[in-house]
């Protein structure tokens, strides 16, 4: 029996994995999620916003980042709007606007916010770092004067107050890679005294942590976990929170595989498997 277990058909593992994830999504157990310190720091920054303040949201991610980052965008937008703040968004990533824009629109619609007055989406702007460098001095120029739908920025009253990145009271970005928080810290953080918070996919956490320790990032949401914490703080438990149960179960499942594999290995004659 142990011999057999040493080489379980991988497809058994795949099917179990699928079942566990789908089951957890359909039947959330609601395992407690404690709030991480770096998440709390980001939350405090949002709570400190005054009515009329302006927040920049940067959708700096590609499709792979959706499950971990979009829930965080929703939570951020909801809380910021509730504080009476206004939002301007943009992205250096080709797919960013498509993926992140809908989340902001949804939250704005829920609270009856008006486009152009309470929020503006300037959309995808090419150039990467070069865009950012330009936007610090002149956002209008960097955005070539138009929003995501090609509307003239001059027709949007909110943009009258936003000539450059210096107009923002908080910068919140959602990143899967470069350009991402590293560039914001280097280009925007160095020159302007605006707090920058970042929400990153979990693989990028080790790269972003040093910026938190050095104070260059004012808060950090770590992967889906961070997004789930933010959903809880914003009181809109959604995809990330329900995803966390699936995370727990799937992680346990993998650990069970490892234990079974090792038991089989120890008891079944130490064959099979490789390192």
């Amino acid at each position: 029996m142990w011999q057999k277990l040493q080489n379980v058909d991988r497809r058994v593992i795949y099917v179990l994995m699928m079942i566990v994830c789908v089951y957890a999504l359909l039947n959330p157990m609601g395992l407690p999620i404690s709030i991480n310190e770096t998440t709390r720091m980001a939350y405090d920054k949002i709570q400190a916003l005054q009515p009329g303040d302006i927040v920049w949201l940067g959708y700096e991610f590609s499709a792979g980042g959706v499950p971990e980052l979009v829930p965080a965008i929703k939570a951020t937008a909801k809380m910021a709007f509730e504080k009476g703040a206004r939002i301007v968004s943009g992205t250096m990533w080709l797919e960013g606007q498509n993926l992140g824009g809908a989340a902001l629109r949804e939250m704005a619609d829920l609270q009856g916010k008006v486009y152009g007055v309470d929020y503006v989406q300037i959309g995808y702007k090419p150039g990467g770092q070069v865009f950012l460098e330009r936007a610090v001095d002149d956002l209008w120029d960097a955005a070539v004067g138009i929003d995501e739908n090609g509307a003239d920025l001059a027709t949007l009253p909110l943009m009258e107050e936003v000539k450059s990145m210096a107009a923002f009271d908080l910068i919140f970005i959602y990143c899967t890679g470069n350009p991402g928080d590293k560039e914001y810290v280097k280009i925007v953080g160095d020159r302007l005294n605006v707090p920058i918070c970042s929400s990153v996919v979990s693989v990028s956490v080790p790269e972003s942590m040093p910026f938190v320790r050095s104070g260059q990032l004012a808060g950090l949401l770590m992967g889906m976990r961070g997004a789930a914490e933010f959903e809880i703080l914003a009181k809109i438990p959604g995809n990330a929170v329900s995803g966390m149960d699936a995370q727990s179960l799937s992680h346990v499942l993998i650990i069970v595989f490892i234990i079974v594999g090792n038991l089989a290995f120890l008891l079944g004659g130490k064959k099979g498997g490789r390192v």
Partner: protein
Amino acid sequence: MDTATLGIWSAAIMTLFLYSYIFVDNPFFKFAEHAYIGVAAAYGMVLQIDNMIRPTIKTKLLVQGQWILIIPIILGLMIYTRYFKSINYIARYTVAFMVGVGAGVVLARDFRASFMLQVADTMRSVTGPGGVENLIVMVGVVTTLTYFFFTLEQKGFVGVTAKIGRWTMMIALGAAFGNTVMARVSLFLGRVQFLLGDWLGIL
């Protein structure tokens, strides 16, 4: 059926076809694989045309008159000489240029970011708050470097140090593996949410 519905159905079917590979290679996967590669390869070309070739010719050449850009265009075109046996050596000029810039970038960029700054950041006080951690990082870096000595025999002191270096690397690699699981599960959850939510409307 409107285009959005048709799109979601196509995407859902493609998703299921692609997943079917993990059980066994089959005609459904083959279809999805070939369709995906076909679109992706051509779309890559379209992006190059939209983002580089068209603006260069339309704006930079014809409007701004940056005629010097003819040189890289010719350099790029040279690669097509590979289809003509008598002059196919010219294709190497394209490659030589790209490899040259590539090597230049490596020499100009990598050393500062990945040697100087990394070495500098390892030099921290090993006493006071965080001292133990700084010491661990320093020892870990030094021993890992020792593991990579190729021309010193890994015996005696060097051997022991290299061994500790290997252990450090194993912790690092194990941690990186474990840390990635969550991201990969997230990706799958994203797909399940698409299939059950956007497609079937259960979620």
